[in-house]
């Protein structure tokens, strides 16, 4: 059994108005594996993703990253975890439009006071890793959807996080480009041992991952 890098214990999230999005979710994400959380719309997968990404706090329950419990009342610690332990890949790519591909990849390191040369070298290497070494000076508006998502993957990897959270990473792409992106994720996962947690409503994607968790109505099936 692989080492667990991310774990939740009886996670509950109740929104104002009494809607319970998560009803005691306990999951384990193995290190260096590709795990998928599969669920339909309203199953609670986005809520789970936000809590794991330290963007939202659970009503009760616990989250462990590298075995250390996350204190959701410690804002500075949450920012630190977002900066160093979590990488985000969004469905809509969410690149900063006025920054070039290279600058977008460097962007997270700006907040952790890394020297410029280190940032640039690291970002260039990652752009090459996702096959976009020749597109570094291009702006998001000049890139295709697939290219933008590759830049977003490179950005998620730049701080060498414990886990990359990918929220419907192929949701805005055609099937061929989606396959390319999933191939890229798999390749990085296999070759570099990066842990990926992919949230999707696409049950077919479950066949392409090492481990899958199905959410339904706020609970794990």
């Amino acid at each position, binding site marked *: 059994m692989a080492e667990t890098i991310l774990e939740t214990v009886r996670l509950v999230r109740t929104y104002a108005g009494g809607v319970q999005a998560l009803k005691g979710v306990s999951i384990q994400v193995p290190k260096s594996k590709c795990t998928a959380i599969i669920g339909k719309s309203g199953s609670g997968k986005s809520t789970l993703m936000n809590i794991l990404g330290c963007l939202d706090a659970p009503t009760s329950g616990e989250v462990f990253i590298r075995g250390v419990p996350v204190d959701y009342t410690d804002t500075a610690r949450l920012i630190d975890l977002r900066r160093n332990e979590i990488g*985000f890949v969004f469905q809509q790519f969410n690149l900063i439009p*006025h920054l070039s591909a290279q600058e977008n990849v460097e962007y*997270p390191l700006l907040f952790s006071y890394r020297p410029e040369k280190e940032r640039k070298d690291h970002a260039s290497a990652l752009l090459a890793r996702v096959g976009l070494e020749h597109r570094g000076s291009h702006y998001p508006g000049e890139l295709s959807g697939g290219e933008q998502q590759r830049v977003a993957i490179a950005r998620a990897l730049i701080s060498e996080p414990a886990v990359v959270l990918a929220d419907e990473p192929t949701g805005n792409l055609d099937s061929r480009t989606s396959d390319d992106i999933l191939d890229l994720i798999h390749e990085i996962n296999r070759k570099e041992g990066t842990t990926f947690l992919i949230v999707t409503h696409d049950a077919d994607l479950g066949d392409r991952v090492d481990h899958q968790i199905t959410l339904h109505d706020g609970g794990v099936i």
Partner: protein
Amino acid sequence: MGQTLDFARISGRQILRRRARLILTILGIAVGVAAVVAIVSLGEGIRAHSIEMISEQSDLTLIEVTGDVRDGAIIPLTTAKVAALRGITHVRGTAPVITVDLATPHQTYIGAVGIGWDDFSTVFTPDFSKGRGYSENSDTAVLGSEIAESLRKYEGIRVGDDLTIRIREYDASGAPVDTEVVFPVAGSLRPRGDMFDTLLVTDSTHLEEWREGYGVYDTIYLRVDAPEHVFAVADAVRGLGLQAQGPFEEIKAVNRLMDAVIIILSFFTGISLIVGAMMIINTMMVSVYERTREIGITMALGASQRHVLTLILLECLYIGILGGIAGDILGVLLSMGINTLGKSFIIEQLGPGFAGFASADITLVTPALLAAGLGIAVILSLLAGIYPGLKAARLNPVDAIRRGM
């Protein structure tokens, strides 16, 4: 430092995304700055010309020191005070003076002042139309231009003649006792336009015999090395418990008046600065609203609230710097416009006494004024950015990413 530059670069690019909006916002603050610069330059111009006129017409470096009354006691002008005044920095010369009223046997009344010749020369630089100065410890005297003319006309006394003065004193029984004293007239002064035109000037030792309060002076005149040091010297004199007066006080009055005028006018023009600041708040609020998702993403990628606030405030800093520079340029142009188009009207309103303004610029733009214009624009812009910046920094990243445009 490196990070600050990176932030500055990112914020710079951010504001350049909406150039038309940026230009309008900059113009908003620039118009306010320009109005303040133009109004203050007009006030400063009038102030500078007024001071120049006073300087031309008055002896600005002369201070008249008299005794003051403190807590009911008169502080006399003693030799010790003279020494103390001489020790004040920037005092080039002191002239302790005693004054006596005299009369000739023909009842021509003469105001006489006693001053040591060296002091008189240093402080008042006498210029003779005839003859020469008097010597120390002698009874020779010089006459001011007007009194010399009167004595020549009514008593036939000229330079080189003896001027007889009748001193009336009273004996123990109250009966008058007249004594006659002779002052050989050594010279007569050219017209000076000051009190010496009507006075007889001689060495003080000679006059002291006929006045009360021996050893105490009536007035001490100070000559300061330069007009810009007069106020400091006057303050030092007052520090000795003495009164300091002189033409320099007119400058003080002009400064007080112009300060009041400039403050009042700046207050009204400052309203346009407030409008400019509100435009910045509005622009930044719209900008934050448009970039809600981007701000959420930035926070998800590890930016703290402080980072977000810094990015927004840096944008405001750029707006302030650009608005300040544009405002200064517009202000200088406005000031030139006032010079070209409004000068005749303003001179007409000020009256004939200000006709001298016609040959010079009526406005005065100084580097300090331009720096103040830039500073005001930057400070206002940063203040205007605080609310939108805090609004952005306090966004919930989940909501921002979900709801953002």
